[in-house]
């Protein structure tokens, strides 16, 4: 029964898809196309489809508690039903003691004691840091996107945005910071959440166990576009991850076709570099997300929209529509073919 219940809550999906990491293509198309798909494709941000040691442990605990809660609730309701129906003559001191002292005081105390021991014993493992030498990723919450900084054991830190890749089966230590408002870093499929608090550095250790694409969200209300502050998480094999990270560390390749070259000129001429960095160009702003390899990302605008030129164009020309309150001004004064060229340039930053 529990198994069926689990499946039901996870969403109706064929088991064959559950462990595959090959869903990137379809999930990389958030927005209109996916709106037509049934609810079943729900694994990307569900705590009930764990793909990490921490989330799996918590999910297990959850199902135990669901079972316990169901039993207790049914028990209380049955007792109530019986009490309403029963004749007063059958009520006596012993029954009073059974209901109040037995069911009301002693039983809950015992059950809660067991649960507490269970919960407390699981806690130190969840708050302990990842073993030293683990991959270290610093995530800063911005309004409303994520700045991601990989700190490899050797070499320069690599600054990225809104997309996190992790090697499967290895613990990773997240260090979480914010210099604006409070955010909360939550990848439901991998682990519980942790707040990002100005003036403090918080920690979260995660060990992914399955490859695939997952989504992280901001879980602490952080202002206007809190709902649109998301990020993509790709868990992949170690070699693949290393390849990806090495590539992300490189500067952007110069554009190789005239349209993209025009886009780069426009990008630099319109002051985009005041806020954004494209390594290898003059653009070195740090206010907004790093765009060096924007074209390689699965989505734009903090995992809110698919990364295609139509959405890139809309984002440049009408950022406030796509993300209410966004700090990026809208460049609707630009000619549409200039915007198009910039979109092509950005999409080409693989």
């Amino acid at each position, binding site marked *: 029964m529990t198994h069926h219940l689990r499946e039901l*809550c996870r*969403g109706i999906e064929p088991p064959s898809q559950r462990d595959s990491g090959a869903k990137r293509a379809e*999930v990389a198309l*958030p*927005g209109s196309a*996916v709106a037509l*798909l049934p*609810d079943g*494709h*729900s694994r*990307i*941000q*569900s705590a009930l489809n764990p793909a990490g040691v*921490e*989330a799996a442990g*918590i999910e297990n605990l959850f199902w135990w*508690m669901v079972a316990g*809660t169901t039993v207790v609730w049914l028990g209380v309701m049955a*007792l*109530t039903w019986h*009490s*309403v129906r*029963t004749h*007063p003559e059958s009520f006596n001191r012993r029954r*009073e003691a059974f*209901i*109040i002292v037995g*069911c*009301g*005081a002693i039983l809950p105390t015992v059950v809660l004691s067991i649960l*507490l021991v269970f*919960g*407390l014993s699981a806690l*130190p493992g*969840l*708050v302990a840091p990842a073993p030293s030498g683990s991959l270290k990723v610093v995530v800063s919450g911005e*309004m409303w996107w994520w700045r991601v900084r990989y700190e490899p054991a050797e070499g320069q830190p690599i600054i990225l945005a809104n997309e996190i890749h992790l090697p499967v089966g290895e613990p990773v230590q997240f260090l979480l910071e914010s210099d*604006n*408002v409070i955010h*909360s870093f*939550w990848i*439901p*499929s991998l682990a*519980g959440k942790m707040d990002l*608090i*100005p*003036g*403090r550095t918080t920690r979260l250790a995660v060990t992914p166990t399955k490859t695939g694409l997952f*989504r992280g*969200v901001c*879980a602490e*209300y*952080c*202002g*206007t576009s*809190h*709902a649109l502050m998301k990020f993509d998480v790709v868990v992949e094999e170690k070699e693949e991850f290393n390849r990806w990270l090495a590539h992300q560390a490189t500067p952007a390749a110069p554009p190789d076709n005239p349209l993209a070259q025009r886009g780069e000129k426009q990008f630099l001429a319109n002051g985009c570099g005041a806020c954004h960095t494209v390594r290898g160009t003059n653009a070195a702003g740090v206010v907004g997300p790093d765009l060096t390899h924007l074209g390689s990302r699965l989505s734009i605008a903090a995992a*809110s929209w698919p990364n295609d030129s139509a959405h890139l164009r809309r984002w440049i020309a009408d950022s406030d529509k796509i993300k*209410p*309150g966004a700090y990026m001004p809208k460049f609707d004064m630009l000619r549409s073919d200039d915007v198009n060229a910039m979109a092509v340039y950005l999409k080409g930053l693989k």
Partner: protein
Amino acid sequence: MSEHREAHEAGKRDAQPLAEAPPKEVQRAQEERLLKIWETPGGWRYWSSVNNSDIGVWYTATAFVFFLFAGVLALLMRIQLAVPDNDFLSAEVYNQAFTVHGSVMMFLFAIPIFEAIAVLLLPQMLGARDLPFPRLSAFGFWCYLLGGIFLCGAIFFDAAPRGGWFMYPPLTSKYQTDIGADIWLLGFSFIEVAAIAAAVEMIVGTLKCRPPGMRINLIPLYAWYVLVAASMMLFAFPPLITGSMLLEIERAFGWPFFDPAGGGDPLLWQHLFWLFGHPEVYVVFLPSVALIAMIVPTFSRTPIVGYGWVVLSAVGTGFLSFGLWVHHMFTTGLPGISLGLFSAASQAVAIPTGVQIFCFIATLAAGRVVRSVPMLFALGSLMIFVLGGLTGVMVALVPFDFQAHDSFFIVGHLHYVMIGGVIFPMLAGLYYFYPLFDGKKLSDRLGKIAFWLTFIGFNITFMPMHLAGLRGMPRRVFTYPADAGLNTLNLISTVGAFILAAGIAVVVWDVIRLKQKQPYSEMNPWGAGTLEWLQEMPGKPWGMRSIPEIDSCYPLWDQPNLQRDVDEGRFYLPDAEEGLRETLVTSVIDAVPQQCARLPGSSFIPMIAAFSLGGFFILGTYHWWWPAVSSLLLAVAVFCYWLWTGTARTPEKDEKYVGLGLTLPIYVSGPASISWWSVFITMLADLTAFISLVFGYFFFWTIHDDFPPQPSPGPGVFWPTLGGGMLLAAWALTVFARRWNRSGNSAAFYTGLLTSIVLAAAGSAALVAGPWLTGLDPKSHVYPATVWVLVLWTVCHVAVGIIMQLYCLARKLAGQMTARRDVEIVNVTLYWHFTALTAGITVAVIAGFPLVD
């Protein structure tokens, strides 16, 4: 039951009602006099009424209107979330909507409705003519109405707060610089002050205004719950008032309490907020479950089983609920051991919460259950609340909370607790108690329809939210993506919300429909056993025709002829010979009559006082400082006028015969007086707010390596010690002045009190001189800001203390205060005890602690 009565009658005889009723014409004359003095004023003067039966109805109706307003906001939010990527509401409007929904439901509905119901019912249940401070209840109501309209109105000008009902800085300090957050901070502080005033009244009412013989083991369970909830308010609200004050100071003047750039910490706000926020859940839950505790015995036709256990449950919950606040902060990165402590306390609180439910179940088993609409809502409440409690136990477990926290799972959980634990009991109470204030019953048929609509609609709305949360839907999102498996769940929730709303609409219709043709209900229509059901249908403004001697927890069941004896005036205070409102004051534990207290009548003063004080807060919101200060000064003047004309009035005689061979004093002072208790209780709340400030100081000390930061100079030792010394001397002279007044030494009294005033002023100046002369700049860092705020807190208290001393001098000069009638100076001395303590702690912290650290 009956053998207990015999046993007690063999032991000791209480006063018995008059064996024969007074002659009919005497009764009629008494009733006329009572009616005349208790009559509700007509015309526009109706709004000057201070009678609890009027205030209670206004209060309840207002709270219900706010409830409907916040409910409509919830429906708008549900429409927005019905489908993914919806644009029915903009992000800005949605954020205002959920902020206002949460804030209004908590501050303008849940807490006020508790006070409203208590104002309405408590005097009736306790056989009192009115609450001990009727004008204070009126004042509280007008504050609430003004503050509530101010807050809710803002959303129509797109100026509503949008920082969430929890208002976390820095979002609400540096990133929302418009007026919304100020409206929240000042508006709710204003309402909270009024709520504390109401809490004081509830406590004094329960402890001191019971009918003779209603010992503490016989008081209705509702009164126990109200006592606990009101006491909790004294300790739960002040931290939020302190926090709001600090946040508003940061917003208005840039003192960096919550800004890490200036050494502050946003987590301090979370501590202060949840130190209020968690107990507050129980503050609204306990008085609601109290209604169930009254309804279940009535319809089971048997006394509650396990009275002592229910008391354990109420008091135990009251205490333990203060050890839970960090469970709202499990994901803020506090050390694991701290999380463990709060997880343990969160589990422990489930024990007393559960016990009372099993007492209700045992009561159902002990009696023969009568079907009725109130009982239907009570059982529905049980089903929902138990589930909410169980999910509460789940989230109290830290590992699971790491996933569930700030997700829709919590939205589901909290609505199961609040709707199951507050709204359903409230609806049960509405159907149960409605005849008491309209004289007519609500419709059984509509009640059943409303129940099934609300019950089914509720579960359809909130059950799927648990699942949505675990599928990764965070709270407070104005939209969600289509690919996350949330579409169906949200659509179901939206449909459910409208079914729930339809149920509430049926209730509203049932209440407002014209009932002219419907006959008045018979007296005690449900066959209940508690005193409030002595009321005639429709009720009379005097509350209780004569105040009975009580021998049982369910006097209507156990005391033969009680109804007749009360109505024929065979008990205490059957008359109002002097044409004044009166009620009995009794002792705390055994309810031995101690005083015949005179109560004030109708007046517009409470309304004017509320509006002028409200002016200060509202004008302050717009930073119009001069009008705001003028409004505050006006409020002070109105309060002085109110006190001068309305309190501690010299009675025309010392004692009064109240019937049944009992003569009671009219004027008392000291701990026997209700005013002494109210000052004491108010000052406990005030001290709690101050302790919250001190907590702030030590919180900053904990998180900083050097606090005070080097080389920043502290306020030094000399000036604070000098100031503290002078303030303690001022306090000592006040204590002596009280003695000199009592011993008739007027010259010493005047000299002492005047010297005390001079010392108090000089001491304040010396206290300010410390940080002033050392050039502590409160904008520069959180250390000087904290020192300044401690000093200013103390100085403000001394300033109020000086006004009080001047008032005493004036009363003495005017001959209103004498050696025997000295309630003013006694209460002012009590105030000064607390002020001296505040000054002492301030000096010890700002001057002493840096020396030992």
